[in-house]
């Protein structure tokens, strides 16, 4: 291909990617969804069931499970959300009053600190309630986005699940024969690592979310379903996710009359137990051998991911670093095999 055409093609791809940037999140979530479901379809492949039939049947089962789950858990989550939304302004006012009193007291007792202390009042109202939830129009816009995601993600995932094996087979078919084995090796390793990691993280989040819900309910912390669901979701982000979960539950305890510091202590102990269980029992079974990153590299990748892409970057940091590590390992192995086992020097030979 001539350099001009190559440049034009690259430019066209860049323009298309920029125009379609709104689809990044739905496509990313669809890939995650497809990875979670793919083992079931491999099982269907072994039974020689056509992919479209298998995916259709799987979606029918999932919709049924969602309906049953919605009927069982939906009312609880809706009532907890509605109650929290009703109580939020009063809770914010109370916490603002307490915060303002502490700031005033500090400023009076230590005038030197006055310059360092924040000025103004109503911090929780201004920075948590107004920014976090915004105006009612924003809320409707966010609900519209969520509804669109709920439609687009399963839609894209359906086609990924149905057509991905065919796309991979066609791509391999067009590859020059000398690159087939290396390309297959790289694809299989990448696919394996991402698949195991995604399924492991989702299963881990489900277990942690369930444990947190049960634990918070037992500790009589308000909104256990919402906080448990948040703990399960936040668990996707290494290191910082569990801290966010304990902070959210602790804040809820502080804002609830009658819970006091003992309640905060109970929540801290509960999340510490869940974290220890997660690291020692749950993760070895769920994420297991999918990630072989050194802890320092793992933390570094999360920090770099956060700087580059925010929360999404923190989520994809670990699989991205693992992919890089696996690709380098494969290339080094390739070189090592060629260097170490020179056939001309070997004393014995067997065919192929």
């Amino acid at each position, binding site marked *: 291909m001539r350099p001009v055409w190559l440049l034009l093609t690259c430019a066209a791809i860049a323009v298309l990617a920029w125009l379609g940037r709104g689809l990044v999140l739905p496509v990313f979530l669809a890939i995650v969804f497809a990875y979670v479901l793919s083992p079931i379809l491999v099982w269907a492949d072994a*039974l020689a069931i056509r992919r479209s039939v298998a995916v259709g049947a799987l979606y029918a089962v999932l919709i049924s499970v969602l309906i049953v789950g919605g009927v069982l858990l939906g009312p609880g989550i809706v009532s907890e959300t509605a109650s929290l939304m009703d109580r939020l302004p009063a809770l914010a006012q109370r916490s603002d009053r307490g915060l303002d009193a502490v700031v005033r007291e500090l400023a009076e007792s230590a005038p030197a600190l006055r310059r360092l202390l924040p000025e103004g009042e109503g911090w929780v109202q201004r920075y948590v309630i107004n920014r976090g939830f915004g105006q009612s129009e924003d809320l409707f816009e966010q609900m519209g986005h969520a509804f669109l995601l709920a439609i687009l993600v399963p839609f894209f995932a359906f086609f990924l699940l149905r057509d991905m094996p065919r796309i991979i087979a066609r791509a391999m078919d067009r590859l020059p024969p000398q690159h087939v084995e290396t390309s297959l090796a790289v694809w299989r390793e990448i696919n394996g690592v991402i698949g195991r990691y995604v399924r492991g993280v989702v299963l881990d989040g489900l277990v942690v979310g369930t444990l947190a819900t049960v634990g918070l309910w037992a500790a009589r912390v308000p909104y256990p379903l919402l906080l448990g669901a948040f703990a399960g979701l936040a668990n996707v982000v290494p290191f910082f996710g569990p801290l966010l979960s304990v902070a959210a539950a602790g804040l809820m305890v502080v804002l609830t009359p009658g819970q006091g510091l003992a309640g905060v202590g109970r929540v801290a102990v509960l999340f510490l137990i869940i974290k220890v269980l997660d690291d020692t029992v749950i993760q070895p079974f769920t994420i297991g051998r999918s990630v072989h990153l050194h802890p320092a590299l793992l933390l570094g990748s999360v920090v770099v991911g956060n700087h580059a892409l925010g929360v999404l970057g923190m989520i994809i940091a670990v699989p991205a670093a693992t992919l890089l590590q696996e690709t380098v390992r494969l290339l080094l192995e390739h070189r090592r095999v060629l260097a170490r*086992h020179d056939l001309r020097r070997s004393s014995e030979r067997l*065919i192929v």
Partner: protein
Amino acid sequence: MFERYVQRWLAWAADPEQALRAPLLARSPLFSGLPRRLLARLGTRFLEKSYNQDEIVFQEGDPGRALFVVVEGTVEITQATPKGEYVLRTLGPGDAFGEIALIDNFPRSASARAASLARLLILYKTDFDALMDGNSQITNVVMRNLAHLLAVYARRTPAVVTDANPAPKTGNPP
């Protein structure tokens, strides 16, 4: 009437490509003896690729990372000698080659070339390892078949060369 519709629907719902893989793998000496259920599971791990006549599948000295099974056409296994290319084997549908790559990390000791328009199934080493780790029956059957194949090659192949200057023996023989 109803049965006919059900049969037609079942025929439509079946994946013909996957349905053909298990019987094909059953014909391969490497996988013979495996039950159909395990052959079907094994079949999902393969990737299919077409090769034109005289196209090189792999060359002597390449790193071996996959096993190949011939679906259609013929493949020649060749080795370069000072007198020219020597054809070790000619393989047809159901035959497997590149199996040594599944047990060691040595480069290919021979080349493979499509002698006619051919379709091959390719199994990546790690997929094979994962399947073996998860099922002892597959491990037992395939390893027995592999040992048998290696014994056959060792007996009939002139390419087995012993070291001209073996290392001096130490210790007493048992």
